[in-house]
């Protein structure tokens, strides 16, 4: 007899929605993915619920994740591209077996499977086309950057404040930034530096040159201005050899000033605000959707025949296609395209240089306990 089929009834626990307590990092070094995932479960569970659907006919889970794409006129604008990943029963079983990230207390039927479904989808997205899901899971299990995972989960770029920068700010300002973000419903991640000699400040030591990512769940300030941050370890508990940290509780409160002064914090990352939702559906306003705006645009005359033709075609998708083709083939369009390509190549070269610089910085951080991250976490 095979394993019972997993369905949407198995996705969530008694609350009927994703909970950060469902996160349990056991066998994969992917705190960089589980911390943003758990933080989203804490702040914006609807995002995860919207991302996963179940198809009873195929018995697949369909997960929407995001990759960097290009949109806008002639594809020059960088924008998130939704990717629909099919996660089969075998994929979820592979994740449960290899990653083993479900909490399975004795006597329980099983724990919510949404973390396994999301992790399998992320592994599928990250793997090469000819790789198996096992190889995909192995591939994501050795540390990466939380910012990339947050983008894959939300299609939006996180903002960050480095530990070094935060250390130099008045504590009230750092408090306001974190408190404000949590109040707005943003997921917040605290990433640590790897330090070979670790101060005892409540945060665990990283692993072999990598830092660790925590979910930030709360912040408080006392009358003396001391700021305490509550963080959740995606491990599902806290233990760190030689630091006196040994607790089955994944939550730990740390003094913000202490962990910043120790250089233990690489950065704080702030994910996007919750999407605007109407009747449980995300509303993304698009300028072209307003009929009045279309009328106005059609009436505009620019003096450029190709552009005027394009504006006049706004009501007719087929005519718009022809107008776009004509515009792209016109001398001005060709010149614009060439200019755009050059800009795009320059931008890619710059991004590549930045990525190389990040790797160099990370290496330096590991060796010198520098605080200028971002640091890879696992």
């Amino acid at each position, binding site marked *: 007899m095979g394993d019972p089929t997993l369905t949407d009834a198995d996705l969530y626990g008694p609350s009927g929605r994703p909970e950060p307590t469902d996160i*349990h*990092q*056991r*066998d*994969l*070094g992917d*705190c960089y993915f589980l911390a943003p995932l758990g933080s989203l479960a804490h702040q914006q569970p609807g995002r995860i619920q919207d991302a996963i659907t179940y198809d009873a006919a195929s018995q697949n889970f369909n997960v929407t994740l995001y990759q960097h794409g290009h949109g806008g006129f002639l594809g020059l604008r960088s924008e998130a591209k939704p990717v629909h990943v099919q996660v089969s029963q075998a994929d979820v079983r*592979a994740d449960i*077996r*290899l990653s083993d990230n479900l*909490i399975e*207390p004795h006597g329980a039927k099983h724990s919510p499977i949404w973390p396994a479904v999301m992790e399998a989808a992320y592994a599928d997205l990250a793997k090469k086309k000819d790789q198996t899901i*096992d190889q995909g*899971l*192995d591939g994501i*299990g*050795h540390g990466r950057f939380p910012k990339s995972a947050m983008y894959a989960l939300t299609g939006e770029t996180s903002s960050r404040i480095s530990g070094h920068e935060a250390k130099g700010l008045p504590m009230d300002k750092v408090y306001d930034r974190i408190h404000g973000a949590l109040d707005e419903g943003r997921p917040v991640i605290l990433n640590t530096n790897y330090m*070979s000699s670790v101060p005892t400040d409540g945060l*665990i*030591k*990283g*692993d*072999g*040159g990598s830092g660790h990512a925590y979910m930030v769940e709360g912040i408080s300030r006392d009358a003396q201005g001391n700021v305490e941050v509550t963080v959740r370890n995606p*491990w*599902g*508990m806290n*233990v*760190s*050899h030689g630091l006196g940290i*040994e607790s*089955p509780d994944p939550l730990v409160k740390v003094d913000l000033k202490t962990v910043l002064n120790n250089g233990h914090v690489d950065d704080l990352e702030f994910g996007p605000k919750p999407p605007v939702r109407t009747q449980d559906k995300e509303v993304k306003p698009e300028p072209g959707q307003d009929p009045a705006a279309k009328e106005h645009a059609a009436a505009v005359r620019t003096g450029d025949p190709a552009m005027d033709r394009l504006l006049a075609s706004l009501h007719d998708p087929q005519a718009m296609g022809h107008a776009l083709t004509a515009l792209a083939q016109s001398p001005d369009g060709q010149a614009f395209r060439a200019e755009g390509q050059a800009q795009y190549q320059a931008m890619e070269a710059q991004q590549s240089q930045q990525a190389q610089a990040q790797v160099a910085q990370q290496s330096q951080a590991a060796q010198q306990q520098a605080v200028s991250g971002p640091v890879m976490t*696992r």
Partner: protein
Amino acid sequence: MTRMLTAFFFCIGFAGVAPAKDASMTLDQLPVPEAFSPRAPLGPTDQAEAQEELVAAVTGKVKQEGYVITDRRIFNCVGYDPATGPQWVVLHAEVGNAMVDTFKAKEFYDHLDAKGPHHLSIWRTSHGDVIAVAQSYETADGKVLVGYFMLGKD
């Protein structure tokens, strides 16, 4: 006199070289985490079948990397928190940090495998010792074994 001095410095020279051999580590120097119960290696007859399975799986994997097992210590792993059970990421952090910080080792292999061992990590220390750490899949009776292996060239 010159001969005596030469002989003296010759001996000192040897003494200076000798620690390189002494500096090589043994598996007993590796940390024994609280996740292990008992906190001593299993005897040859303890869970013999499960031990054999783990050793066979590791032997096959390290052979692909050009190594053979020359020494081993195998432990029963119950996890740091028994309610949570064994967690490779936590074990890897403790053992891996000892490898990096104490033995100046570099990890050159770290993979999980559906066929077993569940996880295998291999480090090379600054003195050239090659150490593998492997975790088995859960056995039929719910046990997980973790092995420390000293490797030599095939």
